[in-house]
């Protein structure tokens, strides 16, 4: 996926993305980080075609994403949003099956291929035994996994996640990120996500894009991108960066 000179302004007064160019590496975990209002979610919304850009182009498989038909694009890229309204009482299985919509049409309804994709998505997210449950009866962590399962049922090569851990307890945050890691390792998905927690980003990403004020400040491996100077420049926080044999790069914020 290529992002080429993308500029976007919601209201015309200032650019929320300013001439952003980057390449999302295939079959890697890419995390976009940055303070509030830095444009990280905006960028995610641009590559998922949710926001229209003022100028620039985003391509998937060397094709402008705007030239895909909606369902065609939904077979290339899936996105899970930070917040989802929980529909009352629909079962997990029914919801996950909605992920097959891009593969269906009004005339062509559910096929065995669809059933297989749903089963696979439920297996990977460890929800098989919950398939008959209603969403209301699940914990926050399980619900978030249901939304991911729905996106997985789309069977796309690219999966986008907008702050997937925000509303979860620590235990479920790690569980979710382990799932993301597994999706990348074992199933070869290209992951693009926005994370708020710098250490989670450091720990789970192959590639980090750091943003501020609509610009890309730095990108590369976690170690290359996250330095004490940059953290101070972008977040206004002094910090200490450690290299741990087991954990990789770790950042400890000190003071503002």
């Amino acid at each position: 996926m290529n992002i080429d000179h993308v500029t976007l302004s919601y209201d015309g007064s200032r650019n929320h993305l300013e001439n952003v160019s980057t390449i999302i590496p295939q079959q890697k975990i890419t995390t976009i980080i940055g303070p509030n209002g830095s444009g990280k979610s905006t960028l995610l919304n641009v590559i998922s075609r949710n926001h229209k850009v003022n100028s620039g182009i985003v391509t998937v498989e060397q094709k402008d994403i705007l030239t895909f038909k909606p369902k065609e694009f939904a077979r290339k890229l899936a996105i899970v949003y930070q917040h989802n309204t929980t529909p009352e009482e629909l079962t997990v299985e029914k919801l996950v099956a909605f992920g097959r919509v891009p593969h269906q049409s009004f005339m062509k309804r559910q096929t065995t291929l669809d059933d297989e994709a749903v089963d696979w998505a439920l297996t990977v997210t460890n929800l098989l035994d919950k398939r008959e449950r209603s969403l209301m009866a699940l914990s926050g962590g399980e619900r978030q996994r249901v939304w991911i399962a729905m996106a997985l049922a789309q069977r796309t090569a690219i999966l986008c996640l907008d702050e997937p851990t925000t509303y979860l307890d620590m235990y479920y945050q790690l569980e979710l990120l382990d799932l993301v890691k597994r999706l990348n390792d074992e199933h070869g998905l290209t992951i693009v996500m926005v994370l708020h927690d710098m250490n989670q980003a450091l720990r789970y990403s192959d590639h980090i894009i750091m943003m501020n004020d609509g610009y890309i400040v730095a990108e590369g491996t976690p170690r290359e991108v996250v330095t004490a100077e940059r953290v101070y420049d972008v977040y206004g926080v002094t910090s200490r960066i450690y290299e741990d044999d087991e954990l990789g790069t770790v950042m400890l914020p000190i003071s503002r």
Partner: protein
Amino acid sequence: MMTKRIVSFVGVTLLLLVAIFFSATTGSVNMGLGEFIRALFGAHNDDFAVIKDLRFPRIIIAIFAGAALSVAGALLQAVMRNPLADAGVIGISAGAGFMSMFIITFVPTLFFFTPLFAFIGGALACFLVFALSWKSGLEPMRLILVGIAISAVFTGLREAFIMICSYMNVTIDGSFTSNMTMKTWTEVEIMVLYGTIGLVLAWLLVKWCNLLTLDDKTVRSLGFPLMTARVIIAAVAVLLSAIATAVAGVISFVGLLIPHIARRLVGNDYKYVIPFSMLAGALLILVADTLGRTLVAPQEIPASTLMAIIGGPFLIFLLRRGDRAK
């Protein structure tokens, strides 16, 4: 849940059959069950001939009107993401009623196209409600208020029109006075034809209705044509309420009451809500109409009047419950 669903479906079907029998055999001409069934299967019976001509059209129209209005309500609730949407309450029926009356009074020869004009009027009202209450989403309360205003305007136009016509000695066809008496087989044909089309279409839209329970952005990320689906579902809802209004008059609250009960009994999946609403709506209107004509016989209370008496308090109940849920 599954057992409850089955019990509910079987229960409502049986009740509907009982109601049909009761309604057919009660009134100025009475008949027992055995006699009725024998006549139904061909035995000659003079009373049955009377029942067939006088009561069957009425029963069929009540059943279809109830089914159509309930399903229309369920569809509107899906498309507006609002449990309070009902064709009567938000003015679609009033728009349909006014428009069909207006055109048929001037061009009585177009009688068979009544449903078409009703559809145009209903669609106009539905569009107005949508356009005027849309403010980056549909907030339930605003929708209801705008709907009530639209409904009032069309009801007012209709009444003004009736007044003006009576001044100018233009006769208005009796069938627009919102009741189910004196229904002919021609009207039954119209009702059954368009009603069946609408109900079958509604059944095909079940999955779309379920999809609309998700957030807009999620639905769009699936590549689903959200706006098109909304317009189509709304159009089917308008068709159903227009046909019911054109034949049986304006009946409010059915589309509010029945889908709500349906969700309680068979769950929120539209695959069950829609067919259950059909059966339960048919039952409710048939019972209301039968009670209306037997309670104070030989006088009649229109089904719409009975529905208003039951439905008004129910709307208040739903509003209060909604407040508490927040």
